[in-house]
Structures are given as structure tokens and as C-alpha cells.
């Protein structure tokens, strides 16, 4: 209920409400961007742009777009993916690799020494590579069920049940 009120106030351009929402979700949004962009400094800048965009677009949010977090997650993903595909970034020879989350998990490939890799690993403990890849595709890269199935060479019908069991493992790891 409290969240609903915050969102209503935010849509009425209440800056204090917006700041509360920022405090609630900034780390998550910046985290998603960081996994895609793989550059802490650039991610922070981009993250800021994304929140300005969220403020400007506040009237475009409605419940047919799902949870509020899901809506801002989508805006952040799109901005980060655009960034990686843009020319400025190509010069740095980084690409939108499919297995970024798997890489971080397995090699503790901490992009810039700023991530909580221990936390990440304890949440992903016991998950198969396939699971981590699927989480990466659906939550970090914004793939649809069908696109994810194609990428993983799996029948579309299995994606839903598989992501259910993957997220359940994370929930067990949290407990």
C-alpha cells in the first residue's frame, strides 16, 4: 500500500517521493546497468540519466506495464543495451555477451572491484549454468520467452517452469 502511495505522489511530481523511490531501487537499477555495461564509472553516469528519464516519463507508467520496479528495470535495460551498441562503446571493444552473469559468477570476474561478488555467489549457489544464463537473459537482458528459448536451444514451453525453479533456488539461498 505504501508503495502505491509513493508512486501516485511520484506521478504528481513530488520530489520527496521520487527520492524515496530512488533510495529503494537505485542500487538495483545501477547493478543491472553495471552487468550490461561492465564499466562502473560509465554505469553510474548512465544510471543517473536513467533516473532523470524516469522522472520525465513518470506519467507514462501505468499498471498494464507491470510492477513499478519492472517498469524502471525495462527503461534501465534499454538504456544500457543502447549504450553498449552505440559507437562510442565499440571503440572499447566490449560487447553484449550472453554470459556476462555466468562470467561474473564463475570467474568472480569483478568488473571493477566494486561489486559484491561474495553476495552474488552466495545467492547463485547451486544454480546450474543454464539457470544463471536464463536469469541473465530474462532479467538483465530483457529477452522474451521465445528469444530466450532460441538462445538456449530449448523448447519455449520449458522456459516458464525452468525460471520458476531457478528463482526458487535463489529464494532458498536467501533464507
Amino acid at each position: 500500500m505504501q508503495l502505491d502511495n509513493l508512486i501516485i505522489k511520484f506521478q504528481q511530481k513530488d520530489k520527496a517521493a521520487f527520492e524515496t523511490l530512488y533510495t529503494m531501487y537505485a542500487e538495483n537499477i545501477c547493478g543491472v546497468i553495471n552487468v550490461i555495461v561492465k564499466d562502473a564509472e560509465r554505469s553510474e553516469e548512465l544510471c543517473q540519466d536513467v533516473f532523470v528519464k524516469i522522472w520525465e516519463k513518470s506519467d507514462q507508467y501505468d499498471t498494464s506495464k507491470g510492477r513499478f520496479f519492472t517498469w524502471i528495470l525495462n527503461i534501465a535495460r534499454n538504456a544500457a543495451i543502447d549504450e553498449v551498441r552505440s559507437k562510442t562503446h565499440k571503440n572499447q571493444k566490449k560487447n553484449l555477451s550472453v554470459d556476462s552473469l555466468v562470467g561474473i559468477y564463475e570467474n568472480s570476474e569483478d568488473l571493477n572491484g566494486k561489486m559484491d561478488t561474495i553476495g552474488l555467489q552466495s545467492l547463485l549457489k547451486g544454480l546450474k549454468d543454464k539457470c544463471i544464463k536464463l536469469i541473465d537473459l530474462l532479467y538483465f537482458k530483457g529477452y522474451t520467452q521465445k528469444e530466450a528459448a532460441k538462445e538456449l536451444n530449448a523448447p519455449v514451453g520449458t522456459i516458464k517452469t525452468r525460471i520458476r525453479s531457478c528463482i526458487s533456488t535463489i529464494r532458498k539461498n536467501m533464507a
Partner: protein
Amino acid sequence: MDVKEYIASGILELYVAGTLSPEENLEVQHYALQYPEIQQEIEAIEKAILALTKTASPKMPKNSFAKIKAEIEDVIPFTPEATKRKDTSSWSTYLGWAASILLAVGLFWMYSENSKLKSEIELTNQENQGLQNILSDTQEEISIKENLLQQLRDKNVTVIALGGQAVSPTSYAKAYWNKEESKVIIDAQGLPEPPDGFTYQVWSLKLDPLTPTSIGLLADFAAMDSKLFTLDNANESEAFGITLEPEGGSESPTLEQLYTLGAVGS
């Protein structure tokens, strides 16, 4: 509606990921309002994703909101000086103000109508896309099923019913063995889901003397909706058996864990 089944389907995970169509989103919201269990489940899933994404965050400076605040304040320029400038205002200035306010209101109205229409078009496009996705998914599923039916109907296929054994008398399975193509399709719908760390292993058996040969595992059992598994079998099998083995399978079958067994008829 079966709430447990709805939750178990995994649709709520996709809802949080934001990969559902607008119609499906509305459906989920509708159920979430109706069934508190669904609302709680959505929040729990979101919590897991929040925990995960948070770990990837670059450590941010404490006052990171300040910059954003400065930027969003720029967006609404307001000049208070204009009100101070003149005390001597004539009717013509009022008229000017009134006209410009009227114009601004008009422009704003047109702008909002326009953006309303744009968002309606966008929604319709999204709906179309959603329906197209559903259609192509369904077509794909149909073609997979037709293909399967074709395989089962092949004249070279022998059907072997595998009955439940002492460990699990209610279990059953069927083997569709195509000797020509050395393939056997196992229909494992009648087997319970294996416990964590275990997997079903299928054995081809020679009866005299009893020699089991592994022909494969029923891998990813829980994820396989159809519960149909295709395995290679070039053996001269006289019977088929399915046992429960530790993950990865075993060299020889654990007979106490024999779930189903059936002999090949002549």
C-alpha cells in the same frame, strides 16, 4: 482457478521480468488483487531479483541523488523577476497575458491529445506483437507434437508397457521402441518427480542370463513438460526397466530402486 498451479506455472517470474504482454500483465494483476497468495508470491520473487541485482551495483556515493535533483530542477525554469518588473500594468498587458495563457492551454491540450493517441497506437502494436508471439508459439508446439505422433505411429514401433514395481506400485511408463531406427521413446508421465540429487535411468535388459545395459537418463525431468524422452537403443532388448539413481547415473542398476519394468512381447 487453481492458485497453486498458477503460481507453479512460472508466469509470475516472467511478470516480474517484464516479458509478458500487456494483456497478460493485466491478467496477473487481476489475480493478484483477488488472491493474496499470488500478490505475496510476486513480492517474494521481486525481493529475490532485488537482492540479486543489488549485489552487482557499483558502490555509489551517498549523495548520489543530489545530482539528479539538480538536473530535474533545471527542467522547470521559473523566473520570479518578471513579476517584480512593472507596477504599472495596463489592460493591454493583461490581454496579452490572457491570450498567451489561452494559447498555452490550447497547445497543451493538443499535445496531450496527440500523446494519448500515440500511446494508444503503441499499446495496439504491443497487443499485436503479443498475439503474434502466442500464435507462433502455438504453431511451433503443434509441429513438435505432430512430429512426435508421427514417430509413435511408425509401423516399426513396438509398444512396451512398463508396470510399477515394489518401490512404487502406482508408477507406470511406456516404451515405444523403433528397432529399425534403434530409437526408443520413453513416456514417463506415470513416474513421480525424482527427489533432488536423483535421476531416472533407463535399462535395456537381456533375460537369460539377466544383463542390464544402460541406455540413458531421463535428464531434466521436472523441466520436461511432455515427459517424453528419446533415447538410442541398438540392443536386442528383451525387457526395459527404469530405476532411480544418484544424479549422473550408475554403472549398474540399483534394483531396490526399480520403479517400472516390462518385457518386450513377441
